[in-house]
């Protein structure tokens, strides 16, 4: 059945190619590479464009671009966010290769200077439902504790919600926290946050750019239902040795980069660590021995990023990317209770880029990704150790082939072998008389092949269509998924385009969590005959309009997403080290729909955007809410983001962001009952939750953040002071609510109950010193 449908899609694809490949005027290829003039690093996502033909291309991960044009004389424009645009007159009489170096804007606050070319590209491309972000942009915006976080900036885009106050979790168009694919230079990252989501693991100094796909997924992506976060790491300066870093309120970071061989190879090493524990240890030392003093547990995180790039020859490049990071939590009580909890990711990727010709190049990547947590608990003369892990070994090959002026093919294949250490628990007594050991582990292999065609039908109509065949094998079970991808753009006028897309995604690995959030102890679980692959379909239509001579962009997208085989867990589910975990899952459906409005200004001294999302996100499970539809915890009817960046002068930049969201839905108990428990035990009040899931809507969330970047004038290099104020008007936004007992003075009698709302962060000012030399 699957293969018949696959045949149908491929036949359709071939027919389209044949139909459209009718010979016309002789075409020549304009290709080359765009680089930073200072560092020689490739510029990813930059634009090469011939406006007269409305033809162009964006650069790939290596800064390469290629497109076909008929013979003639043209003006070609190269542009990139924060860089001076270059225009060249070219005479195309044969294939042409142009290696271009763009210089950063001469302004000290170059980051805010963004050329209109980027907005034009948003109009021209068939790709919709994508958000692009560079570290340069993110560094200007105010941040919690002054810690710049690219994922949190993505939360300011329409259709993207956070998991809660200050967290870096992503809930994209009604998807869950486990339905996002995080890729770092092509390698999967499983737990992309520190401190339960308060900080993402991506050190901004090591990141070049981030692309977030909310829908209209290109065929090369698969494996998650709701979003793809594709993170491109920096290669490092190919000309000079540079040291940069920052000293902040809770963390400091340092990056060293430079050429290994000038202009041909480079390295970048970056590290970051929090020092919250340094202060808490001092505090504990001062108060040690005091009556009723409970020591504060140790907590810190650190991460290291590294990348090396090598140009082996004219046509071959090699890249190695590495990430290593851990969160460490430790507690020791005077009564002999020792608790150590460590979790983190390790990622390594080796990519080989080979250019067969200016029209045909291939990226081949092998990668390893590992996430694990480990808890060691020692109490007096006994101990236990609990842990879980997932380790992937992956291979993927992605090729781009410029067929002619109308067609660009992308095709490739991928395979990932997963090792799921679902749970591991061991323990015993120090005398050896008690010892126990249990482990639940699985393996599975995920694979996919894809092909897609970017087809410029004419100057108005462009199509991108393709198909991905994915699969998953575990023991004797094999699942296949046929994932058609289609998107189209039609230019009504030179500044107005209509777009539409349809995508299907299949997810073969599932996060075992009943927290509604993504926590370090959540484990990944493979599909099997009971836990079938999750499936989503999404349609979206939109309009994109440029006005004000290309300085302003307006877009609106309406989407509808329906998801099958969504997972939850039965009440009282035992999720730790359970060999029968399959029995704890329950299955249902998900629906999400909404409309996203986006208005952006990217040129001039004042830039920014205004986003508004109207959306509904629901689930339907036979075993929850009596089988009736219910809103998810992250169902948010209205969501507004307003971001402004203003360049006051060459040294001073002011920024502000305001967010508003309908309150999250939440389950609150309606009743209570009293249990005295067995003899010699305590009386307990037990909350009684209604059948209705998420029966209460918390009050709206809103917050204003302000920031200021002041460029200093050091004798050597560059430096700045970045000030930020989080939650300027000290709004006590709800994080969760609970019902609390009201007790008499000596706490011997309960007089009644009251509802309480807990907020996390009040107004928090922060300052960070950044340097580069």
């Amino acid at each position, binding site marked *: 059945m699957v293969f018949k449908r696959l045949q149908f899609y491929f036949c359709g694809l071939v027919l389209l190619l044949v139909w459209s490949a009718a010979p016309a005027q002789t075409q020549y290829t304009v290709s080359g590479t765009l680089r930073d003039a200072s560092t020689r690093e490739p510029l990813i996502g930059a634009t090469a464009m011939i406006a007269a033909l409305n033809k162009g291309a964006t650069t790939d991960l290596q800064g390469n671009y290629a497109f076909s044009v008929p013979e003639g004389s043209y003006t070609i424009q190269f542009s990139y966010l924060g860089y001076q645009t270059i225009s060249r007159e070219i005479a195309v009489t044969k294939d042409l290769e142009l290696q271009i170096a763009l210089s950063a804007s001469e302004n000290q606050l170059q980051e805010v200077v963004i050329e209109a070319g980027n907005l034009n590209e948003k109009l021209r491309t068939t790709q919709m439902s994508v958000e692009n972000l560079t570290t340069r942009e993110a560094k200007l915006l105010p941040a919690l504790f002054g810690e710049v976080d690219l994922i949190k900036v993505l939360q300011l885009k329409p259709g993207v919600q956070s998991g809660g106050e200050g967290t870096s979790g992503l809930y994209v168009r009604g998807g869950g926290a486990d339905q996002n694919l995080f890729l770092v230079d092509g390698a999967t990252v499983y737990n992309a946050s520190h401190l339960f989501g308060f900080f993402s693991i991506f050190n901004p100094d090591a990141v070049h750019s981030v692309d977030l796909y909310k829908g209209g997924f290109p065929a090369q992506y698969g494996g998650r239902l709701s979003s793809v976060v594709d993170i491109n790491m920096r290669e490092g300066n190919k000309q000079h040795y540079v040291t940069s870093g920052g000293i902040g309120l809770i963390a400091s970071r340092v990056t060293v980069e430079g050429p290994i061989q000038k202009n041909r190879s480079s390295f970048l090493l970056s590290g970051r660590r929090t020092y919250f524990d340094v202060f808490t240890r001092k505090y504990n030392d001062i108060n040690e021995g005091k009556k009723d003093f409970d020591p504060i547990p140790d907590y810190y995180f650190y991460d290291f990023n590294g990348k090396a790039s090598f140009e082996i020859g004219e046509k071959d490049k090699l890249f190695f990317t590495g990430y290593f990071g851990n969160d460490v939590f430790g507690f020791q009580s005077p009564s002999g209770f020792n608790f150590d909890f460590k979790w983190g990711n390790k990622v390594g990727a080796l990519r080989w880029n080979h250019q067969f010709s200016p029209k045909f190049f291939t990226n081949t990547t092998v990668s390893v990704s590992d996430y694990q947590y480990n808890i060691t608990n020692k109490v007096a003369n006994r101990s236990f150790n609990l842990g879980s892990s997932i380790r992937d070994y992956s291979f993927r090959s992605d090729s781009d082939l410029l067929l002619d002026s109308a067609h660009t093919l992308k095709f490739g294949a991928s395979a990932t072998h997963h090792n799921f250490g679902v749970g591991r628990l061991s323990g015993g007594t120090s005398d050896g008389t008690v010892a*126990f050991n249990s482990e639940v582990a699985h393996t599975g292999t995920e694979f996919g092949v894809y092909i897609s065609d970017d087809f410029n039908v004419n100057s108005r109509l462009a199509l991108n269509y393709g198909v991905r065949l994915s699969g998953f094998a575990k023991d004797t079970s094999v699942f296949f998924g046929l994932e058609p991808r289609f998107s189209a753009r039609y230019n009504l006028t030179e500044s107005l385009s209509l777009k539409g897309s349809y995508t299907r995604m299949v997810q073969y690995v599932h996060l075992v969590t009943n927290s509604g959030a993504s926590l370090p102890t959540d484990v990944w679980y493979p599909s099997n005959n009971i836990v079938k692959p999750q499936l989503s379909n999404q349609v979206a239509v939109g309009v994109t309009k440029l006005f004000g001579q290309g300085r302003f962009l307006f877009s609106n997208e309406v989407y509808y997403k329906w998801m099958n085989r969504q997972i939850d*867990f039965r*009440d009282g589910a035992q999720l730790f080290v359970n060999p029968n975990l399959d029995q704890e899952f329950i299955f249902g459906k998900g629906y999400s729909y909404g409309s996203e409005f986006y208005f952006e200004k990217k040129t001039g001294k004042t830039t920014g955007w205004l986003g508004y999302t109207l959306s509904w996100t629901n689930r339907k499970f036979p075993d929850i809410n009596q089988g009736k539809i219910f809103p998810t915890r992250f169902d948010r009817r209205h969501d507004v983001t307003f971001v402004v960046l203003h360049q006051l002068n060459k040294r001073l930049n002011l920024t502000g962001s305001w967010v508003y969201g309908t309150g999250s839905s939440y389950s609150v108990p309606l009743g209570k009952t009293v249990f005295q428990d067995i003899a010699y035990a305590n009386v307990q009040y*037990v909350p009684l939750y209604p059948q209705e899931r998420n029966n209460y809507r918390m009050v709206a969330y809103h917050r204003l953040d302000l920031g200021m970047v002041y460029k200093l004038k050091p004798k050597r290099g560059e430096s700045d002071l970045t000030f930020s104020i989080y939650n300027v008007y000290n709004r006590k936004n709800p994080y969760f609510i609970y019902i609390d007992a009201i007790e008499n003075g000596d706490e011997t009698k309960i007089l009644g109950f009251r509802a309480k709302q807990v*907020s996390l962060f009040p107004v928090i000012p922060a300052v960070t010193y950044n340097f580069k030399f």
Partner: protein
Amino acid sequence: MLRLNRLFTLILIAFSSAFSGCDMDKEIDLNLPEFESQITVECYLEPGKPYRATITESTSYFGRPEPILVPDATVIITHNGKADTLLFKPGYDSDVRKIYTHFSETVVTGNPGDAYSLEVFDSRGRRVTGFTRFMPTVPLDSVEWSMNDERSISLLAKFTDNGSQEDFYRFTVHQDSLSDQKRTHDFYSNDRLYNGQKYAFGTSYRFSPDDTVFVTLYHLEPQYYVFLNTMDDAQDANGNPFAQPIALKSTVQGGIGVFATLSFDRKRVILK
């Protein structure tokens, strides 16, 4: 077994408090919809003790904190075909510091395998039923203790699990007396990790020389173990942003509550 979600909440609150330095709780108005009350049953059968049950009603969360009694409730316990109707006679047992609403003179024999059924009904037509069976007692093999350099003492209670079946346990430690206010430890566990092996429950270094401790190992029925776990989960969900709401899984049908046998082994130890 592990309540890591609670730990995460504590870390988050501690983290935010460290930076905020102020109280981030505030009282709010919560308009809850009408709540339909149900009969709540609590009846534990203990060898050598008479039939005793507590029958109350569940109430709206913001209703009165005291339990609401159900005077017209009829409570019948049946064992070996003999039905005993418990009399409504609310009273307080100061020995165990519990209130009971219904009594009978019949004493529980509590032999392993003995089965009992429960029926509760009232004038409003509400009817609750339950069934329980005595589990064999699992003996404590030993209660050992060790002293650290600060002369604090840690306990270790060992027992051997029966490998032929799935077992569920509750372990409690009381200091000085069996009063509920002297309870220091209370865990429940299934034998998934130690089926058929020797296992140990223990404490931290929290006792002193000459302390008297009571160590009790209960052997639970599966449904009672599930009830205890969901009761914990339901309490945990109130005030834990990482927890899902959990419906209490009662051991009785038609209402809320627990009807369970108590099979246990207890040791009294003086820490010399």
